[in-house]
């Protein structure tokens, strides 16, 4: 079978799923609570469900909130979706940036000396072994449920990954590069600046993509368990009241944002590591 044929089948499966959902919503019209269908069709999702997002608009910008007694309006719903998405995405990317920078710096510092590299082995294994998502309550008690608490948690999750990734990448730098530079009289700092840091970057590409998955998991986990805003907050709040349609709507937003972030990260990191000779890449594949 040709590639194009496979693509067409894949596309047909997608369209089929979308249509099946619509059909199911017509056949299975049970309502979990009055006015909220258990299977919300696409027409319901873009009209009534979207409108109900107005409930999560806190007011301002000349658009009154439902809490202030205003009717649900599309303007309030749109503003609500935008602001809550912004909150979630901001936490995600700030946490990601802090974790990536901090983790890489710490990883480089640890790999500076053979001693610290050896000593960190087992503790690092234990720290990595601590199930990250179970630590949400701990970070909430430490840093609160606001912005700082969220980015501290995401930053920690991403940071641990980057420390491990950096240590691994530094270990994989061919010794001959370093020896060569040292023979020519380079100082340790120069070796780091001109050899190790550029050499680990291609290896870190995998860590970067992996950390994106961790960042998504941690931001959602953190927002589920105590947040005043964000998409995860809406999702878990809707679950408590049985608003399946709202949950579905927010889940779709998550899928869209996550897919975009993966595609962009993939594209950007592929471009940044374009210069890497192909021969050095498969070392990892095993």
């Amino acid at each position, binding site marked *: 079978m040709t590639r194009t044929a496979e*693509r067409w089948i894949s596309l047909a499966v997608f369209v089929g799923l979308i249509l099946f959902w619509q059909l199911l919503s017509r056949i299975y019209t049970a309502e979990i609570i009055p006015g909220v269908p258990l299977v919300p069709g696409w027409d319901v999702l873009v009209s009534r469900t979207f409108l109900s997002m107005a409930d999560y608009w806190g007011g301002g910008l000349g658009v009154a909130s439902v809490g202030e007694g205003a009717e649900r309006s599309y303007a309030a719903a749109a503003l609500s979706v935008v602001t809550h998405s912004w909150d979630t995405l901001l936490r995600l990317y700030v946490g990601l940036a802090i974790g990536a920078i901090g983790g890489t710096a710490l990883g480089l510092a640890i790999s500076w000396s053979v001693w610290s590299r050896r*000593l960190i082995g087992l503790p690092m*294994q234990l720290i990595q*072994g601590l199930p990250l998502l179970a630590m949400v309550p701990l970070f909430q*008690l430490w840093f609160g449920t606001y912005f700082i608490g969220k980015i501290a948690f995401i930053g920690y999750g991403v940071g641990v990954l980057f420390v491990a990734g950096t240590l691994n990448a530094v270990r994989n730098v061919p010794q001959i590069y370093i020896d060569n530079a040292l023979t020519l009289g380079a100082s340790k700092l120069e070796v780091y600046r001109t050899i190790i840091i550029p050499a680990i970057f291609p290896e870190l590409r*995998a860590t970067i993509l992996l950390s994106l998955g961790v960042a998504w998991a941690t931001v959602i986990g953190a927002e589920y368990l105590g947040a005043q805003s964000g998409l995860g907050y809406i999702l878990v709040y809707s679950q408590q009241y049985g608003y399946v349609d709202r949950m579905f709507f927010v889940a779709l937003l998550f899928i869209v944002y996550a897919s975009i972030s993966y595609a962009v990260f993939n594209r950007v990191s592929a471009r940044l590591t374009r210069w890497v000779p192909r021969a050095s890449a498969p070392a990892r*594949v095993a």
Partner: protein
Amino acid sequence: MASDTSMIDGTTAVLPSRPRAADQRGVTVWATLRSFRIDIFGAIGLVLLVVFWWGLTFVVPRSSLPSPLNVFRRIADDFVVADMLSYYGLPETGLMGSMAYTAANVLIAVVVGGLIGTVLGLFAARVPVARAISDPILNTVGTIPILVMAPFFLIWFGTGRWSAVLLVTVYVLVILYLFAQRAAENLDPVYESSARTFGAGTGDILRDILIPGTLPQVLGGIRIALAGAWGLEAIAELLGAQQGIGKIIEVLAGSLDIEGIFAALLVLGIVAVIADWIAGALVRYVTRWSVSARVGTT
């Protein structure tokens, strides 16, 4: 999922690599056991970590950071029955019993999800039509942060055991689907071609080539899935469950009992690390004939 290739390659970077096992030619049971021995530097590092933690308790208030000694004592006290938790109506308050419940759920999910994912992945790798159908579905599920599904499962299946198990099962299934598919595609076609030349049927090829040939990578995938499964199971229990270590953490967080949270997290973390060691040793033993398993963790 757009990033699947890199994600799978990337996981090798995340897992602690074990060059020592790789050095040994002809890994035997003895060598597998020996790979368990803890290196002296690691042990010193671990002691330093505890000392650092202990030192930190003099700077940070006790309400934020309990001392290691208190946490260890707490683990010992609450191991079988936790008196403080007996008022919350939990069917199981001890750390051991709760941990056993959580571990059982993880085990069920890893076995079921692993089996289904592997079968689907191998099937998709060899039957293009099946692949064209399953790839868009499973790759979409793979892109979804799996945690998004948790509230849905809670609504559909309630707060019992099965909504958490299902969540972890889906997670494991997606990973193993990708790993098995990749492994089957990476298998040199010459093995299957030559077997067919000798008259092997589909069943023979499956038994003698496809399954043993993909086993190292599939088991590597199981190990990676296992590492993530603990946290996912715990947060599923945190969101809504009757028992389990996640439920214990939820109750303790409600009463701001940071010492108890530390104790529960430490028990969970230690079990997760030990499970990873056992899985790693098992992978090395089962795949001791394989070059690729000896070279890397994948």
